[in-house]
């Protein structure tokens, strides 16, 4: 995966950090201090389509469905997450208990073209 930089318009991972203090959530989320949300952006020319490891992804299935149901749909591919990891949270619930859990697939680590 490639991280986005100013001069490239190709498919890349755009970093995006949500600071819990900034959105007023630091009172109920004890750890971490924020969420590295990240997302995928950029162009996917035909020659970049079909990055390995994406064959079984949800996105591939959706796009295949779009193509199957729409004969006019072209072969343009999309820039989507290819690697994700969980977000570990330590937080207060509504009963003031403290809960620790790992939410799967919340952080985008790498992007690629379908």
């Amino acid at each position, binding site marked *: 995966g490639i991280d986005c930089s100013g001069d490239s318009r190709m498919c890349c991972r755009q970093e995006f950090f*949500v600071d819990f203090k900034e959105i007023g959530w630091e009172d109920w989320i004890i750890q971490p201090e924020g969420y590295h949300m990240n997302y995928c952006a950029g162009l996917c020319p035909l020659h970049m389509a079909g990055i390995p490891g994406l064959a079984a992804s949800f996105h591939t299935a959706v796009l295949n469905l779009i193509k199957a149901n729409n004969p*006019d*749909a072209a072969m343009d591919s999309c820039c*989507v997450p290819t690697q994700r990891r969980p977000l570990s949270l330590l937080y207060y619930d509504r009963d003031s*208990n403290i809960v620790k859990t790992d939410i799967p697939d919340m952080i985008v680590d790498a992007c690629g073209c379908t």
Partner: protein
Amino acid sequence: APRGVRCPACGLAALAPTTQRDVLIALAKQSILSKLRLPDRPNITQPMPRGALLTALRRMYAQRTDTAVSPGIPRDGSTPHLRPEMGLQEYQILSFAESGSSTSRSVHLHFRFTRELAGSAEILQATLYLFWAVPGPGTHPVTVRLLQPDPTGLNMTVASETRLEVQRAGWATLDVGQAVQSLFGQGSPRLTVELEVAEDWGSPLLASHSDSHWPFVAAQARARLPHRVQRR
């Protein structure tokens, strides 16, 4: 998407930078709340004292404990590592006691469990942590009763009763997994623990004197399996 047109996943790029930021933050909030099964962000009026939280976390992960009295959990009091099964989300829950009525010979503690989790998760293990404040040398008998509301919700019934011999001040653990598990099937999961002493201790617990000795229940839970649809 038709040839030459932006692919469906790239709608975000068309937004102005400030709008894009707002959309992303709203998406992040919505995503976290829905994954935690919370309808809205919790409002925390009284956060736990830092000392109580740190002590509880330390005790939960400790390799050894001062006193291990319960059957069904390791003698060292540690929390066994449970392997995630079938990718189901797991939770570790710390519930701190709310003080209830007390007399010179008994103390009531209340533990309220997460309503959201009660509906969607099952308890794998739960341990009650108590810090004894022993009045003097010798052995001091204590009876620990786990009380649950009956089906009408009006009366309390004894789910289990354990007699302990306390010899010195320090942490003790008690397996309450079964009681918490059966509570999770109820609408308002609240566990009441009654501690009864033979003689007049004042209070068998040190909780009222120090945040670091606050009684708590440490539980491990796992998201329930979704209902399976069978196809012939």
